[in-house]
């Protein structure tokens, strides 16, 4: 049991002492997860919007595919991305393996269905009266779309937070694609996996606490934004 207590102490030691391997892992985690969250919002928001706003043939099937993608295990995404960006793979020439960019690609694939599905649901949940109200107030098609998006901003924010939480905590993709290279692609989660493998449970717990702190800060600042 003492390694749990030791973990707490260690967490503060690592952060306060400015331990470079810890801080580079924290920084790498932040960079890569922020990047992949933004990419997934960039791709997922329009797709989710189209899916939630318009009715078209085959929409149901697309939703089913999207919902299935929600269940994709990270190790599978990691493997698939590896297969593509490996030097033997179709995107091998770009040298993305063992880079944060590679991880970001994988995490974007992980987060995209979350953002798209949640956005689609939020858009679908828009009060039917909203569109009618906007039309009767003289809004054009573009006004309607932007106003609708602004109306569901909290839902979209929630989608982003969910996606961020997912990419922040995933380990399969970071490990498979990033290779857990110290000072480069080692993220907090792969570092935890490593420390656990080394039997250094206290260090693993310390890093876990750091991760929770980051998640906490992110959520806190978002709820602050929401109040604004």
């Amino acid at each position, binding site marked *: 049991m003492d390694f749990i207590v030791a973990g707490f102490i260690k967490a503060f030691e690592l952060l306060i002492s400015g331990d470079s391997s810890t801080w580079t892992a924290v920084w790498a985690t932040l960079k890569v997860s922020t990047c992949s969250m933004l990419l997934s919002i960039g791709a997922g928001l329009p797709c989710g919007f189209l899916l939630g706003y318009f009715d078209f043939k085959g929409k149901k099937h697309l939703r089913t595919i999207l919902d299935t993608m929600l269940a994709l295990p990270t190790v599978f995404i990691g493997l698939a991305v590896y297969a593509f960006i490996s030097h033997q793979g179709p995107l091998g020439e770009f040298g993305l393996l063992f880079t944060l960019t590679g991880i970001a690609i994988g995490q974007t694939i992980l987060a995209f269905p979350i953002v798209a599905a949640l956005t689609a649901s939020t858009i679908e949940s828009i009060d039917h009266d909203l569109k009618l109200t906007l039309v009767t107030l003289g809004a054009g098609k573009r006004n309607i779309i932007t106003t609708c998006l602004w109306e569901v901003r909290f839902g979209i924010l929630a989608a982003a937070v969910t996606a961020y939480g997912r990419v922040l905590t995933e380990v399969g993709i970071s490990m498979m694609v990033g290779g857990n290279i110290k000072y*480069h692609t080692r993220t907090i989660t792969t570092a935890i996996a490593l420390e656990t493998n080394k039997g250094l449970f206290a260090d693993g717990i310390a890093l876990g606490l750091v991760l929770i702190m980051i998640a906490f800060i992110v959520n806190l600042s978002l709820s602050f934004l929401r109040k604004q």
Partner: protein
Amino acid sequence: MNKRKIFTSILTIVFTMILAISVQAGSKGLMMATTTSTDNTGLLDYLIPHFEKQTNISLKWTATGTGKALKLGQNCDVDVLLVHAPPAEKKYIANGYGKDRREVMYNDFVIIGPENDPAGIKGKSISDALSAVKNEQAVFMSRGDDSGTNKKEKLLWKNAGIQLPDKEKWYVQTGQGMLATINVAQERNGYTMTDRGTYIKYQSQKDGNAPLKILVEGDSILLNQYSVLTLDPKNCANAKYDLALKFSDWMASQNAQNLIKDFRLLGQKLFIPNAK
């Protein structure tokens, strides 16, 4: 407006991050795939800064099982390998994936188990010890991950004339790294085979009071040879063959060999240099 300020600052942070990522993607240098034992023991953290300083070549590594390391090389995703599975390595070169194989150091494997030794293997030869484990159906942990260590262990069963007890209840395959496997063995009160380096690391974490003790050691078959492998440029044109060769040369140099000899974990030697 306050809101706008917050928004701009968030945007700035985000763009910095994206920039940081794209810069990072272009970095040049040698990429190595190696086994968990060299990484987990801290050998590479100790050795590589010397290499980088002396040759001005930057080197990054990813630590995984030997099986995956070889695969990464076969797919040209790395430039050089530091692995420990001689038969597989030789086959690898024969298949045209690897080019030069240079033996650089070794450590040895030991069989560890609980102090009360339920199968009574202490002091026995490795083959007798494994037979005893089998007869007593004592719990035995295997990595089961096709790593160098796992390959070695399978070889030991074969040498003892025992068919791999793959499906036996007492034969537990963890699918995890060495230290994790030792920890599982400790929880289950079982035997396992490990490289000495990892065992020392394990021992140190238990403050010299480790529940699992070394029971079988010293057999010549238990030697664990590490080699540097370069990739065959015919298979991997993109791999940095010249730099890989430099690394291989450096590892075999007197300088590096001395460094390896001096590397100690908790006062104990881990690797014995043996480059020819």
